[in-house]
Protein backbone atom coordinates (compact mmCIF):
# COMPACT_ATOMS: atom_id res chain seq x y z
CA UNK A 1 0.00 0.00 0.00
CA UNK A 2 1.18 3.49 -0.84
CA UNK A 3 0.40 6.62 1.09
CA UNK A 4 -0.56 9.73 -0.89
CA UNK A 5 -1.96 13.10 0.11
CA UNK A 6 -4.35 14.82 -2.24
CA UNK A 7 -5.46 18.35 -1.33
CA UNK A 8 -4.23 17.68 2.22
CA UNK A 9 -6.34 14.52 2.55
CA UNK A 10 -4.27 11.37 3.09
CA UNK A 11 -5.31 8.10 1.47
CA UNK A 12 -3.82 4.65 1.10
CA UNK A 13 -3.96 2.97 -2.26
CA UNK A 14 -2.53 -0.07 -3.97
CA UNK A 15 0.58 -0.06 -6.08
CA UNK A 16 -0.03 1.08 -9.63
CA UNK A 17 -3.10 3.19 -8.90
CA UNK A 18 -3.29 6.45 -10.81
CA UNK A 19 -3.66 9.78 -9.03
CA UNK A 20 -7.17 10.13 -10.43
CA UNK A 21 -8.29 6.82 -9.00
CA UNK A 22 -6.70 7.63 -5.68
CA UNK A 23 -8.68 10.88 -5.67
CA UNK A 24 -11.84 8.98 -6.54
CA UNK A 25 -11.19 6.83 -3.50
CA UNK A 26 -11.45 9.99 -1.41
CA UNK A 27 -14.36 11.32 -3.44
CA UNK A 28 -16.03 14.73 -3.37
CA UNK A 29 -14.43 17.89 -4.72
CA UNK A 30 -10.93 16.46 -4.66
CA UNK A 31 -11.63 14.39 -7.78
CA UNK A 32 -10.27 16.11 -10.89
CA UNK A 33 -12.69 16.23 -13.82
CA UNK A 34 -11.98 13.70 -16.58
CA UNK A 35 -13.20 13.99 -20.12
CA UNK A 36 -11.31 11.16 -21.79
CA UNK A 37 -10.38 8.69 -19.05
CA UNK A 38 -12.89 5.85 -18.63
CA UNK A 39 -12.15 3.28 -15.98
CA UNK A 40 -13.81 0.49 -17.95
CA UNK A 41 -11.83 1.08 -21.11
CA UNK A 42 -8.22 -0.05 -21.22
CA UNK A 43 -5.78 2.53 -22.50
CA UNK A 44 -8.18 5.45 -22.21
CA UNK A 45 -7.00 8.75 -20.76
CA UNK A 46 -4.18 11.11 -21.45
CA UNK A 47 -5.88 12.93 -24.31
CA UNK A 48 -7.89 15.84 -23.00
CA UNK A 49 -5.71 17.17 -20.13
CA UNK A 50 -8.67 18.34 -18.03
CA UNK A 51 -7.44 16.15 -15.20
CA UNK A 52 -4.16 18.05 -14.76
CA UNK A 53 -2.90 18.26 -11.18
CA UNK A 54 0.22 19.57 -9.51
CA UNK A 55 2.53 17.14 -7.79
CA UNK A 56 4.09 19.12 -4.97
CA UNK A 57 6.24 16.23 -3.81
CA UNK A 58 7.06 13.32 -6.09
CA UNK A 59 7.62 10.71 -3.40
CA UNK A 60 8.94 10.21 0.09
CA UNK A 61 12.42 9.60 -1.27
CA UNK A 62 12.45 12.47 -3.72
CA UNK A 63 10.65 15.44 -2.18
CA UNK A 64 11.07 17.70 -5.21
CA UNK A 65 7.92 18.81 -7.00
CA UNK A 66 7.35 17.57 -10.54
CA UNK A 67 8.41 20.27 -12.99
CA UNK A 68 5.13 20.37 -14.91
CA UNK A 69 1.50 19.68 -14.18
CA UNK A 70 0.70 16.03 -14.84
CA UNK A 71 -2.36 14.26 -16.21
CA UNK A 72 -3.73 12.55 -13.11
CA UNK A 73 -5.53 9.84 -15.10
CA UNK A 74 -2.31 8.39 -16.42
CA UNK A 75 0.23 9.11 -13.69
CA UNK A 76 0.67 6.34 -11.12
CA UNK A 77 1.09 7.36 -7.50
CA UNK A 78 4.26 6.90 -5.53
CA UNK A 79 4.67 6.44 -1.84
CA UNK A 80 4.59 9.77 -0.02
CA UNK A 81 3.36 11.72 -3.02
CA UNK A 82 1.70 15.07 -2.31
CA UNK A 83 -0.81 16.17 -4.93
CA UNK A 84 -2.65 19.46 -5.27
CA UNK A 85 -5.81 19.77 -7.24
CA UNK A 86 -8.16 22.54 -6.12
CA UNK A 87 -5.66 23.90 -3.62
CA UNK A 88 -3.29 24.95 -6.39
CA UNK A 89 -4.18 28.13 -8.29
CA UNK A 90 -1.84 26.98 -11.04
CA UNK A 91 -4.07 23.95 -11.72
CA UNK A 92 -7.21 26.05 -11.85
CA UNK A 93 -5.52 28.42 -14.26
CA UNK A 94 -4.31 25.56 -16.46
CA UNK A 95 -7.74 23.96 -16.49
CA UNK A 96 -9.26 27.23 -17.63
CA UNK A 97 -6.85 27.17 -20.53
CA UNK A 98 -7.75 23.56 -21.32
CA UNK A 99 -11.44 24.42 -21.39
CA UNK A 100 -10.70 27.26 -23.74
CA UNK A 101 -8.85 24.86 -26.01
CA UNK A 102 -11.63 22.29 -25.89
CA UNK A 103 -14.08 25.01 -26.87
CA UNK A 104 -11.82 26.44 -29.54
CA UNK A 105 -13.62 24.67 -32.34
CA UNK A 106 -16.71 23.67 -30.42
CA UNK A 107 -19.93 24.99 -31.92
CA UNK A 108 -21.62 25.42 -28.51
CA UNK A 109 -24.99 24.78 -30.08
CA UNK A 110 -26.36 23.43 -26.81
CA UNK A 111 -29.93 24.62 -27.60
CA UNK A 112 -29.93 22.17 -30.51
CA UNK A 113 -27.72 19.48 -28.99
CA UNK A 114 -29.38 16.40 -27.50
CA UNK A 115 -26.65 16.06 -24.89
CA UNK A 116 -27.49 19.38 -23.21
CA UNK A 117 -28.33 18.91 -19.56
CA UNK A 118 -26.10 15.87 -19.15
CA UNK A 119 -23.01 17.07 -20.96
CA UNK A 120 -19.62 16.91 -19.27
CA UNK A 121 -18.33 19.75 -21.40
CA UNK A 122 -21.21 21.96 -20.30
CA UNK A 123 -20.39 21.25 -16.67
CA UNK A 124 -16.73 21.90 -17.29
CA UNK A 125 -17.28 25.17 -19.14
CA UNK A 126 -19.72 26.28 -16.48
CA UNK A 127 -17.12 25.60 -13.84
CA UNK A 128 -14.01 26.89 -15.57
CA UNK A 129 -15.08 28.48 -18.83
CA UNK A 130 -14.77 32.06 -19.80
CA UNK A 131 -17.58 34.03 -21.31
CA UNK A 132 -15.45 35.53 -24.02
CA UNK A 133 -13.84 33.91 -27.02
CA UNK A 134 -10.30 34.93 -27.76
CA UNK A 135 -10.38 33.83 -31.39
CA UNK A 136 -12.02 35.41 -34.40
CA UNK A 137 -11.43 32.60 -36.85
CA UNK A 138 -14.21 30.50 -38.26
CA UNK A 139 -14.69 27.25 -36.40
CA UNK A 140 -14.06 24.08 -38.33
CA UNK A 141 -17.20 22.49 -39.64
CA UNK A 142 -18.03 18.98 -40.70
CA UNK A 143 -21.24 17.60 -42.13
CA UNK A 144 -23.45 15.61 -39.77
CA UNK A 145 -23.26 11.94 -40.69
CA UNK A 146 -25.00 8.71 -39.77
CA UNK A 147 -22.80 5.93 -38.54
CA UNK A 148 -25.02 2.95 -38.67
CA UNK A 149 -28.77 3.00 -38.48
CA UNK A 150 -29.13 4.37 -34.99
CA UNK A 151 -26.19 6.66 -34.34
CA UNK A 152 -25.68 10.23 -35.47
CA UNK A 153 -22.23 11.80 -35.49
CA UNK A 154 -21.80 15.54 -35.10
CA UNK A 155 -18.09 15.84 -35.65
CA UNK A 156 -18.28 19.57 -34.83
CA UNK A 157 -18.89 18.72 -31.21
CA UNK A 158 -16.27 16.00 -30.85
CA UNK A 159 -13.42 16.66 -28.43
CA UNK A 160 -11.36 13.68 -29.65
CA UNK A 161 -11.35 11.82 -26.36
CA UNK A 162 -11.05 8.49 -28.23
CA UNK A 163 -13.46 6.78 -25.83
CA UNK A 164 -15.72 5.59 -28.62
CA UNK A 165 -12.76 4.17 -30.47
CA UNK A 166 -11.78 2.16 -27.41
CA UNK A 167 -15.34 0.90 -27.04
CA UNK A 168 -15.31 -0.27 -30.62
CA UNK A 169 -11.90 -1.83 -30.11
CA UNK A 170 -12.56 -3.58 -26.85
CA UNK A 171 -16.25 -4.44 -26.94
CA UNK A 172 -16.80 -5.43 -30.51
CA UNK A 173 -14.92 -7.89 -32.64
CA UNK A 174 -14.76 -5.79 -35.77
CA UNK A 175 -13.85 -2.20 -35.35
CA UNK A 176 -15.39 -0.19 -38.12
CA UNK A 177 -14.66 3.32 -37.05
CA UNK A 178 -11.70 5.24 -35.82
CA UNK A 179 -9.89 8.53 -36.07
CA UNK A 180 -8.95 9.69 -39.54
CA UNK A 181 -6.32 12.35 -40.28
CA UNK A 182 -4.22 14.11 -37.69
CA UNK A 183 -4.06 17.21 -35.56
CA UNK A 184 -6.47 20.01 -36.17
CA UNK A 185 -8.36 18.19 -38.89
CA UNK A 186 -8.63 14.77 -37.28
CA UNK A 187 -12.12 13.36 -37.26
CA UNK A 188 -13.93 10.31 -35.95
CA UNK A 189 -15.34 8.47 -38.90
CA UNK A 190 -16.11 5.21 -40.49
CA UNK A 191 -14.21 4.42 -43.63
CA UNK A 192 -16.33 5.71 -46.52
CA UNK A 193 -19.46 5.92 -44.36
CA UNK A 194 -19.36 2.25 -43.50
CA UNK A 195 -22.08 1.51 -41.04
CA UNK A 196 -21.32 0.35 -37.57
CA UNK A 197 -23.51 -2.67 -36.99
CA UNK A 198 -22.06 -4.55 -34.06
CA UNK A 199 -24.40 -5.59 -31.24
CA UNK A 200 -22.69 -3.34 -28.69
CA UNK A 201 -21.96 -0.36 -30.89
CA UNK A 202 -24.68 1.72 -29.22
CA UNK A 203 -22.47 2.13 -26.17
CA UNK A 204 -20.41 4.73 -27.99
CA UNK A 205 -23.36 7.08 -27.39
CA UNK A 206 -23.10 6.68 -23.64
CA UNK A 207 -19.33 6.90 -23.40
CA UNK A 208 -19.20 10.08 -25.49
CA UNK A 209 -18.80 12.88 -22.93
CA UNK A 210 -20.28 15.42 -25.35
CA UNK A 211 -23.07 15.41 -27.91
CA UNK A 212 -20.95 14.17 -30.79
CA UNK A 213 -22.45 10.68 -30.83
CA UNK A 214 -26.17 10.71 -30.21
CA UNK A 215 -29.07 8.31 -30.38
CA UNK A 216 -31.00 8.69 -33.62
CA UNK A 217 -34.11 7.11 -32.13
CA UNK A 218 -34.16 9.93 -29.57
CA UNK A 219 -33.04 12.70 -31.89
CA UNK A 220 -34.79 15.98 -31.01
CA UNK A 221 -37.56 14.06 -29.30
CA UNK A 222 -37.37 15.86 -26.00
CA UNK A 223 -34.89 17.47 -23.68
CA UNK A 224 -33.42 15.38 -20.90
CA UNK A 225 -34.81 17.63 -18.18
CA UNK A 226 -38.39 16.92 -19.24
CA UNK A 227 -37.84 13.19 -18.78
CA UNK A 228 -37.77 11.03 -15.69
CA UNK A 229 -34.92 8.53 -15.52
CA UNK A 230 -36.03 5.19 -14.08
CA UNK A 231 -34.07 2.07 -13.33
CA UNK A 232 -35.47 -0.79 -15.37
CA UNK A 233 -34.42 -4.28 -16.36
CA UNK A 234 -35.43 -7.15 -18.58
CA UNK A 235 -34.25 -10.63 -19.41
CA UNK A 236 -31.70 -10.21 -22.14
CA UNK A 237 -29.55 -12.93 -23.64
CA UNK A 238 -26.85 -10.55 -24.81
CA UNK A 239 -26.27 -8.11 -21.97
CA UNK A 240 -27.17 -7.63 -18.32
CA UNK A 241 -30.46 -6.03 -19.31
CA UNK A 242 -30.03 -3.39 -16.62
CA UNK A 243 -30.76 0.03 -18.08
CA UNK A 244 -32.03 3.51 -17.34
CA UNK A 245 -35.35 4.22 -19.04
CA UNK A 246 -36.08 7.88 -19.68
CA UNK A 247 -39.82 8.31 -19.34
CA UNK A 248 -42.22 11.01 -20.38
CA UNK A 249 -45.42 10.12 -18.56
CA UNK A 250 -45.81 6.40 -19.18
CA UNK A 251 -43.91 6.48 -22.47
CA UNK A 252 -40.29 5.49 -22.81
CA UNK A 253 -38.43 8.08 -24.87
CA UNK A 254 -35.01 6.53 -24.74
CA UNK A 255 -32.94 3.82 -23.11
CA UNK A 256 -29.41 4.37 -21.87
CA UNK A 257 -27.02 2.46 -19.69
CA UNK A 258 -26.86 3.27 -15.99
CA UNK A 259 -24.21 5.87 -15.32
CA UNK A 260 -22.38 6.18 -12.04
CA UNK A 261 -21.34 9.41 -10.34
CA UNK A 262 -18.42 9.90 -12.72
CA UNK A 263 -20.62 9.49 -15.76
CA UNK A 264 -19.32 6.02 -16.49
CA UNK A 265 -21.55 3.12 -17.42
CA UNK A 266 -22.06 0.45 -14.79
CA UNK A 267 -22.51 -2.16 -17.48
CA UNK A 268 -22.52 -1.93 -21.24
CA UNK A 269 -25.86 -2.73 -22.82
CA UNK A 270 -26.72 -4.24 -26.17
CA UNK A 271 -28.32 -2.49 -29.11
CA UNK A 272 -31.52 -4.47 -28.87
CA UNK A 273 -32.18 -3.17 -25.35
CA UNK A 274 -31.13 0.32 -26.34
CA UNK A 275 -32.86 0.89 -29.63
CA UNK A 276 -35.64 -1.62 -30.01
CA UNK A 277 -37.36 -2.04 -26.67
CA UNK A 278 -39.27 1.19 -26.26
CA UNK A 279 -42.56 -0.11 -24.88
CA UNK A 280 -43.02 0.15 -21.15
CA UNK A 281 -44.32 -3.44 -21.24
CA UNK A 282 -40.84 -4.58 -22.29
CA UNK A 283 -39.35 -3.52 -18.99
CA UNK A 284 -39.69 -4.19 -15.29
CA UNK A 285 -39.51 -0.80 -13.59
CA UNK A 286 -37.47 -0.64 -10.41
CA UNK A 287 -37.94 2.99 -9.46
CA UNK A 288 -36.58 6.47 -10.08
CA UNK A 289 -32.86 6.95 -10.43
CA UNK A 290 -30.89 9.22 -8.15
CA UNK A 291 -30.24 12.61 -9.73
CA UNK A 292 -27.88 15.14 -8.18
CA UNK A 293 -29.79 18.05 -6.75
CA UNK A 294 -27.66 20.50 -8.72
CA UNK A 295 -28.62 18.91 -12.04
CA UNK A 296 -31.23 20.52 -14.25
CA UNK A 297 -32.78 17.05 -14.59
CA UNK A 298 -33.68 17.11 -10.91
CA UNK A 299 -36.47 19.65 -11.39
CA UNK A 300 -39.74 17.88 -10.65
CA UNK A 301 -37.89 14.64 -10.09
CA UNK A 302 -38.90 12.82 -6.92
CA UNK A 303 -37.14 9.74 -5.78
CA UNK A 304 -39.84 8.66 -3.39
CA UNK A 305 -43.43 9.59 -2.97
CA UNK A 306 -44.35 10.30 0.61
CA UNK A 307 -47.96 10.17 1.66
CA UNK A 308 -48.97 13.38 3.29
CA UNK A 309 -49.33 13.45 7.03
CA UNK A 310 -52.74 14.38 8.37
CA UNK A 311 -52.88 17.03 11.04
CA UNK A 312 -55.83 17.16 13.44
CA UNK A 313 -55.75 20.72 14.71
CA UNK A 314 -58.36 20.31 17.42
CA UNK A 315 -56.92 17.26 19.08
CA UNK A 316 -53.44 18.61 18.36
CA UNK A 317 -52.25 15.29 16.94
CA UNK A 318 -50.61 14.32 13.67
CA UNK A 319 -51.10 11.06 11.80
CA UNK A 320 -47.78 10.26 10.17
CA UNK A 321 -47.81 8.06 7.10
CA UNK A 322 -44.57 6.30 6.40
Amino acid at each position, binding site marked *: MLKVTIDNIPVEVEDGTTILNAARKIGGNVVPPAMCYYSKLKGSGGKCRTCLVRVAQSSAKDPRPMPKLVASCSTPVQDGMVVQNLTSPEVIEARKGIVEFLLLNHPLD*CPVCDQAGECDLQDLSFGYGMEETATEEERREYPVIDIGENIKLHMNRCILCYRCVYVADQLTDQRLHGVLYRGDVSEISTFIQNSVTNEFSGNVIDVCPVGALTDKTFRFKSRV*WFLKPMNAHRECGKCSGKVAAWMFGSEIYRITGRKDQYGELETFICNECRFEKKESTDWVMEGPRHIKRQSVIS*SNHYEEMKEQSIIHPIEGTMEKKE
Partner: protein
Amino acid sequence: MKSLTNRSRVVSNKQMNFWERIYFPAILNGMRITFGHLFRKKTTVQYPEVKREYSDIYRGKHVLKRDEEGRERCTACGLCAVACPAEAITMVAAERKPGEEHLYREEKYAIVYEINMLRCIFCGDCEEACPKEAIFLTPELVKSEYSRDKFTYGKDELVEPLDPAKRIDVSKRQTAEVLEFKKNKKYKHNK
Protein backbone atom coordinates in the same frame (compact mmCIF):
# COMPACT_ATOMS: atom_id res chain seq x y z
CA MET B 1 -51.36 51.53 32.45
CA LYS B 2 -49.27 53.05 29.69
CA SER B 3 -50.75 52.29 26.29
CA LEU B 4 -48.62 50.99 23.45
CA THR B 5 -50.14 53.28 20.81
CA ASN B 6 -51.74 56.66 20.95
CA ARG B 7 -54.89 55.37 19.27
CA SER B 8 -56.63 53.93 22.32
CA ARG B 9 -59.97 55.50 23.21
CA VAL B 10 -61.86 55.47 26.43
CA VAL B 11 -65.20 53.72 25.82
CA SER B 12 -68.16 55.70 27.07
CA ASN B 13 -71.74 54.60 27.38
CA LYS B 14 -73.15 58.04 26.64
CA GLN B 15 -76.79 58.22 25.51
CA MET B 16 -77.36 59.65 22.00
CA ASN B 17 -79.28 62.90 21.89
CA PHE B 18 -82.41 63.45 19.74
CA TRP B 19 -80.62 64.54 16.53
CA GLU B 20 -78.24 61.73 16.70
CA ARG B 21 -81.04 59.27 17.24
CA ILE B 22 -82.95 60.20 14.05
CA TYR B 23 -79.68 59.78 12.01
CA PHE B 24 -80.70 62.60 9.71
CA PRO B 25 -77.62 64.78 10.05
CA ALA B 26 -75.42 61.69 9.64
CA ILE B 27 -77.17 60.75 6.39
CA LEU B 28 -76.83 64.30 5.06
CA ASN B 29 -73.17 64.27 5.88
CA GLY B 30 -72.73 60.96 4.03
CA MET B 31 -74.54 62.31 0.97
CA ARG B 32 -72.31 65.36 0.97
CA ILE B 33 -69.24 63.16 0.73
CA THR B 34 -70.78 61.01 -2.03
CA PHE B 35 -71.78 63.96 -4.19
CA GLY B 36 -68.52 65.64 -3.55
CA HIS B 37 -66.82 62.75 -5.39
CA LEU B 38 -68.87 63.47 -8.53
CA PHE B 39 -66.87 66.61 -9.15
CA ARG B 40 -63.46 65.16 -8.58
CA LYS B 41 -61.06 63.99 -11.31
CA LYS B 42 -61.96 60.42 -12.41
CA THR B 43 -59.51 57.63 -11.67
CA THR B 44 -60.90 55.20 -14.29
CA VAL B 45 -60.67 55.38 -18.08
CA GLN B 46 -63.15 54.19 -20.69
CA TYR B 47 -61.23 51.13 -21.94
CA PRO B 48 -60.98 50.23 -24.83
CA GLU B 49 -61.82 53.68 -26.29
CA VAL B 50 -59.26 55.26 -24.01
CA LYS B 51 -56.06 53.42 -23.19
CA ARG B 52 -53.57 54.13 -20.51
CA GLU B 53 -50.00 54.74 -21.44
CA TYR B 54 -47.97 51.54 -21.17
CA SER B 55 -44.35 51.19 -20.34
CA ASP B 56 -42.22 50.11 -23.30
CA ILE B 57 -41.26 47.03 -21.41
CA TYR B 58 -44.74 46.12 -20.20
CA ARG B 59 -45.07 42.36 -19.88
CA GLY B 60 -48.12 41.23 -21.85
CA LYS B 61 -48.74 38.63 -24.53
CA HIS B 62 -45.70 36.82 -25.90
CA VAL B 63 -44.31 36.96 -29.40
CA LEU B 64 -42.04 34.43 -31.09
CA LYS B 65 -39.65 36.48 -33.17
CA ARG B 66 -38.29 35.85 -36.63
CA ASP B 67 -34.83 36.96 -37.64
CA GLU B 68 -34.02 39.55 -40.33
CA GLU B 69 -34.49 36.96 -43.05
CA GLY B 70 -37.87 35.90 -41.75
CA ARG B 71 -36.76 32.58 -40.29
CA GLU B 72 -38.16 31.46 -36.96
CA ARG B 73 -35.59 31.97 -34.25
CA CYS B 74 -36.90 29.43 -31.74
CA THR B 75 -35.01 26.16 -31.75
CA ALA B 76 -37.18 24.32 -29.23
CA CYS B 77 -34.39 24.14 -26.69
CA GLY B 78 -36.86 23.98 -23.82
CA LEU B 79 -35.07 26.53 -21.66
CA CYS B 80 -38.12 28.79 -21.47
CA ALA B 81 -40.24 25.84 -20.38
CA VAL B 82 -37.80 24.84 -17.66
CA ALA B 83 -37.47 28.45 -16.49
CA CYS B 84 -41.22 29.06 -16.40
CA PRO B 85 -42.38 29.06 -12.77
CA ALA B 86 -45.99 28.46 -13.82
CA GLU B 87 -45.17 25.60 -16.21
CA ALA B 88 -47.17 27.32 -18.90
CA ILE B 89 -45.01 26.39 -21.89
CA THR B 90 -44.91 23.13 -23.81
CA MET B 91 -43.28 22.35 -27.11
CA VAL B 92 -42.49 19.56 -29.53
CA ALA B 93 -39.31 19.77 -31.57
CA ALA B 94 -38.76 18.65 -35.13
CA GLU B 95 -35.78 18.42 -37.44
CA ARG B 96 -35.50 20.89 -40.27
CA LYS B 97 -35.60 19.18 -43.64
CA PRO B 98 -33.41 20.18 -46.58
CA GLY B 99 -35.15 23.02 -48.40
CA GLU B 100 -36.65 24.51 -45.26
CA GLU B 101 -33.64 26.66 -44.46
CA HIS B 102 -35.58 29.82 -45.28
CA LEU B 103 -38.21 28.97 -42.66
CA TYR B 104 -36.20 27.96 -39.62
CA ARG B 105 -32.96 29.36 -38.40
CA GLU B 106 -31.52 26.23 -36.82
CA GLU B 107 -31.35 22.54 -37.53
CA LYS B 108 -34.11 21.95 -35.03
CA TYR B 109 -37.30 23.95 -34.64
CA ALA B 110 -40.50 23.90 -32.62
CA ILE B 111 -43.26 22.25 -34.62
CA VAL B 112 -45.67 22.78 -31.73
CA TYR B 113 -45.19 25.59 -29.26
CA GLU B 114 -47.95 26.36 -26.80
CA ILE B 115 -48.32 28.79 -23.94
CA ASN B 116 -51.25 28.47 -21.61
CA MET B 117 -52.15 32.09 -20.95
CA LEU B 118 -54.26 31.15 -17.94
CA ARG B 119 -51.26 29.64 -16.23
CA CYS B 120 -48.81 32.34 -17.31
CA ILE B 121 -48.08 34.92 -14.65
CA PHE B 122 -46.30 37.27 -17.08
CA CYS B 123 -43.10 37.21 -15.13
CA GLY B 124 -40.90 37.34 -18.23
CA ASP B 125 -38.62 34.53 -17.09
CA CYS B 126 -39.04 32.85 -20.48
CA GLU B 127 -37.73 35.96 -22.19
CA GLU B 128 -34.81 36.02 -19.80
CA ALA B 129 -33.98 32.33 -20.35
CA CYS B 130 -34.15 32.26 -24.14
CA PRO B 131 -30.67 31.87 -25.66
CA LYS B 132 -31.91 32.62 -29.16
CA GLU B 133 -33.73 35.90 -28.57
CA ALA B 134 -36.82 34.15 -29.82
CA ILE B 135 -39.44 34.83 -27.19
CA PHE B 136 -40.36 38.28 -25.92
CA LEU B 137 -43.27 39.67 -23.99
CA THR B 138 -45.06 42.60 -25.63
CA PRO B 139 -47.31 45.41 -24.39
CA GLU B 140 -50.23 43.73 -26.14
CA LEU B 141 -52.83 42.20 -23.83
CA VAL B 142 -54.24 38.71 -23.82
CA LYS B 143 -57.88 39.03 -24.84
CA SER B 144 -60.71 37.67 -22.78
CA GLU B 145 -62.55 34.65 -24.14
CA TYR B 146 -65.69 32.69 -23.41
CA SER B 147 -64.02 29.32 -23.04
CA ARG B 148 -60.89 28.24 -21.23
CA ASP B 149 -59.34 26.17 -24.02
CA LYS B 150 -59.01 29.24 -26.25
CA PHE B 151 -56.33 30.50 -23.88
CA THR B 152 -53.82 27.91 -25.02
CA TYR B 153 -52.00 29.94 -27.63
CA GLY B 154 -50.24 27.97 -30.33
CA LYS B 155 -47.69 29.05 -32.89
CA ASP B 156 -50.39 30.63 -35.08
CA GLU B 157 -50.97 33.24 -32.39
CA LEU B 158 -47.46 33.61 -31.09
CA VAL B 159 -45.16 33.75 -34.12
CA GLU B 160 -44.88 37.27 -35.51
CA PRO B 161 -46.09 37.95 -39.07
CA LEU B 162 -43.66 37.40 -41.92
CA ASP B 163 -44.44 40.80 -43.46
CA PRO B 164 -41.53 43.08 -42.42
CA ALA B 165 -43.93 46.00 -41.94
CA LYS B 166 -45.93 44.09 -39.35
CA ARG B 167 -42.97 42.86 -37.32
CA ILE B 168 -43.01 43.58 -33.64
CA ASP B 169 -40.21 45.81 -32.45
CA VAL B 170 -38.64 44.57 -29.25
CA SER B 171 -35.43 46.57 -29.32
CA LYS B 172 -36.57 48.66 -26.35
CA ARG B 173 -36.72 45.51 -24.24
CA GLN B 174 -33.09 44.69 -24.81
CA THR B 175 -30.32 46.08 -22.75
CA ALA B 176 -27.64 48.28 -24.27
CA GLU B 177 -25.12 45.44 -23.90
CA VAL B 178 -27.28 43.04 -25.91
CA LEU B 179 -27.81 45.55 -28.69
CA GLU B 180 -24.11 46.27 -28.77
CA PHE B 181 -23.34 42.52 -28.95
CA LYS B 182 -25.78 42.08 -31.81
CA LYS B 183 -23.94 44.67 -33.86
CA ASN B 184 -20.82 42.61 -33.47
CA LYS B 185 -21.04 39.88 -36.12
CA LYS B 186 -17.68 38.39 -35.28
CA TYR B 187 -19.01 35.19 -33.76
CA LYS B 188 -20.83 32.53 -35.72
CA HIS B 189 -23.71 32.23 -33.32
CA ASN B 190 -24.42 35.90 -33.80
CA LYS B 191 -24.64 35.93 -37.59
